[in-house]
């Protein structure tokens, strides 16, 4: 093995034990007695911890590697930075709360719910203040939505760079929110007809603000206080965040403290100097809110190599669109010469992640894996070259192109680009 070039030590360890053990022994051969069966493990003989040991449960001690991770060289300080969801370790469509990626501009605000206030001001009949208790007295709704940072994949514009879908695609999570429709709160204040825009503002030390057009505010936005059934995590905006379905994550203002109605957009920092997409011509697009349809194979992937050798293999991945549902995902094993339809399993909800699978028998030859999402508007996820053709390489944001993974005959997976 040319070990020097293997991506990581732990992956090597996996391979030497995994591949050697599984691939070479035919299923029909008589196996040696397995001590996992013939021996009595301690968990079978001895009682474990009682119900009082873990009042808030945590994952198994064997799952400690399943964590959010950051890329140190990306930003100047971890206080104004991002970490990434370990997509390669997850299945289904819901992201567990403790694994939802984080993006803060001035760290995690620890807001005291007793002192939480939400103000509505500007072009309304009556400027109002709500406490958290007040918000809990409005009718609630539950919706599953993905939240994707507009910069997800931003490091890959110039070429394949990071080995792992956690890093190339992990600025996303998919959560069931419980909250109050923003339109209900606005109705309570009485929106004036001159109001065309809404400014959402956070209570953190960055004072995050974004301008949102009224049509969206009155359409499907939520003022949410629960995620996956429990209170929002501090890093996700506890006690209250804005939910802007299908639109870029930066607009989902956390620690939401104020909603102002106005007749024009505010053109604040996060919608001018950032979150605008520079094109090759030197012109930049602004207000690029919707997240285009996208998909990625989460396993096999660089952090989830094939360890079992040739034979039955499960390929799985995620697809989503800010414009609706994902009725179809195509998968190729040969770098796009031939495609097959993947099987979508689980709920198909608008502006939510979709889980897809493709089961096949791997013959042990190298593979070039790709997935291609189709959304309910008919839009088809573009290749990297197709996207660069219309966007150049300087956009940073909204890279929704097709990802390629190279699988070696040893099952090692690498992030590559292909012709």
């Amino acid at each position, binding site marked *: 093995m040319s070990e020097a070039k293997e*991506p*990581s030590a*732990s992956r090597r360890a996996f391979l030497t034990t995994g591949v050697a053990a599984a691939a070479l022994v035919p299923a029909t051969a008589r196996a040696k007695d397995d001590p996992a069966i013939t021996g009595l493990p301690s968990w079978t003989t001895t009682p474990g911890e009682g119900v009082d040991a873990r009042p808030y449960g945590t994952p198994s001690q064997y799952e400690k590697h399943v*964590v959010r*991770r*950051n890329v140190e*060289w*990306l*930003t*100047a300080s*971890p206080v104004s930075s991002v970490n990434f969801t370990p997509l390669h370790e997850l299945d289904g469509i819901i992201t567990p709360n403790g694994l939802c990626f984080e993006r803060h501009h001035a*760290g995690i605000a620890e807001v005291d719910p007793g002192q939480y206030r939400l103000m*509505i*001001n500007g072009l309304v009949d009556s400027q*109002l*203040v709500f406490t958290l208790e007040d918000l809990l007295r409005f009718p609630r709704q539950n919706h599953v939505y993905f939240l994707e940072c507009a910069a997800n994949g931003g*490091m890959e514009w*110039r*070429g*394949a760079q990071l*080995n792992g879908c956690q*890093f190339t695609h992990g600025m996303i999570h998919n959560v069931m929110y419980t909250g109050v429709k923003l339109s*209900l709160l606005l109705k*309570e*204040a*009485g929106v004036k007809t001159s109001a065309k825009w809404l400014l959402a503002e956070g209570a953190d*030390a960055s*004072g995050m603000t974004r301008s949102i057009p009224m049509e969206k505010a009155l359409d499907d936005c939520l003022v949410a206080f629960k995620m996956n059934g429990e209170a929002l995590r501090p890093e996700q905006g506890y006690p209250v965040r804005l939910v802007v379905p299908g639109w870029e994550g930066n607009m989902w203002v956390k620690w939401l*403290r104020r909603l102002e109605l106005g007749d024009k957009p*505010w053109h604040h*920092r996060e919608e*001018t*100097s950032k979150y*605008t997409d*520079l094109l090759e*011509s030197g*012109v*930049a*697009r*602004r207000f*690029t*809110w919707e997240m285009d349809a996208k998909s990625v194979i989460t396993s096999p992937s*660089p952090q989830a190599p094939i360890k079992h050798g040739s034979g039955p293999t499960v390929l799985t991945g995620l697809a989503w669109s800010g414009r609706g549902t994902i009725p179809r995902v195509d998968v190729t094993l040969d*770098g*796009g*010469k*031939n*495609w097959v339809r993947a099987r979508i399993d689980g709920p198909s909800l608008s502006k939510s992640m979709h889980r897809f699978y493709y089961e096949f028998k791997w013959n042990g030859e190298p593979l070039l894996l790709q997935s*291609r999402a189709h959304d309910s508007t*008919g*839009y*088809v996820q*573009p290749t990297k070259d197709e996207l660069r053709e*219309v966007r150049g390489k*300087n*956009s940073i944001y909204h890279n929704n192109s097709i990802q390629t993974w*190279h699988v070696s005959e040893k099952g090692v997976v*690498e992030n*590559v680009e292909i*012709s």
Partner: protein
Amino acid sequence: MSRFLNRRSIAAAVCVSASLFAGWAAAEKLGLGRPATEAEVKAWDIDIRPDGKGLPPGKGSVATGEELYGKLCASCHGDFGEGVDRWPVLAGGKDTLKSEDPVKTIGSYWPYTSTIWDYVHRSMPFGAAQSLSDDDVYAITAYLLYLNDLVDEDFVLSDKNFTTIELPNKKNFKLDDRPDSPIFKKRDPCMKDCKESVKVTGRARVLDVTPDSGATKDDAKAPAPTAAADAKKDAPKADAKVADKPTAAPKAAAIDMELAKRGEKLFRQCTACHDAGKGAKNKVGPALAKIMGSPLASVPGFKYSKVFKAKAAEGAVWDSATMDAFLKKPMSWARGTMMAFGGVRKAEDRQALIEYLKLVAPGEPGAKKAAAPKEAAVVAIDAALAERGKKVFRACKACHAVGKGAKNKVGPGLYKVLGAPIGSVAGFRYSKTFKKKAAAGEVWDAASLDAFMAKPLAWAKGTYMAFGGVRKASDRKALIEYLKSVGQE
């Protein structure tokens, strides 16, 4: 069980009164919440729009802005807005938007002046948001415009002339027209025999910037040129060098020859005034024969300025931290120094210079250890100042215990800090940045404490001390005097 039955019967009783169950129509208001008072709206509604809506009355000059910027902004954004490490670049970048490496600054990219005012006012300085007065914000905005060659040096920005200042790149923004692009056309993509051959054209492994899977042993790796996070190209290489150091034995810190070699080249700009290496003589500046690890102002025969004499009296030592701070801004780090030199702007250049000095001008082995604690022990305490420091220290008490046997809280226990090696409090879990400093043999002296307290997050990038910093130099001095006094009582 009876409890459940009870509740059910209560529910049944309540059912009788149908009006209690009246739902409410979507069109109707609930009457929840309360009216916001005028003062409340004023307190929170701080946003500014391009048309000037929201601007408070006030004004500020470029000159005032320069002073404020130097104190509050330059440590991250650079003296000229060029950006330190990965902090945002604020000036320059003209005509780069179509290039391979666009530099998006206020002058080259931002469309509106109001964005500067609003953002500085609501979020800056980093770590002390919303601490600036309106006039301060006008002044800093004016200075940022000046740094971008958009106004003259005698310009004064005010609410009166604000909307007349247009940024040059305003015209180069357009609305989202993604749906008009060819890739949005409905397509029925090919499924079979779509291409003849496929070639791998690029591999992530070539760049190798993925963090290792071991969460604790991450090496800082040099990223390739990328658009990511508006990253700068040159900084990470220097970071990688720093990260290498902890593996070397802390005592005989190995010299990075490649870095030192680069430092030698950079040192050329210093040779007009400084002779370096064995047998070096004093010129306009002191001979640099034994510097790294030596006490400040200790070169025989050189006539030092007052500021250096004072620092020497405090027991300060030339280590990587003090040298870096001095080289960065000689005249502000050592106010009144005779070294009429603007400073070395790039962190990696300073690192190279220091590496070169370590190579050609190492101090006496052990000089650091001998000098600092002894000096600190002899220094008399200004009791009144220490008393004032004790008061200022109240702000620190939530996280730091002080005195003999002080326990670690959120921050390390503080006892005999002056002269102690950085990152040496037993049982405290230090951030990487402090571990690095510890591995480099850095010591807490008045200079390093002052620099740290002034801007914790900038001086020790990645520190867990989530504290904005002590702005007043006099407060920092008092704090240091207080810390000195602890352990000497």
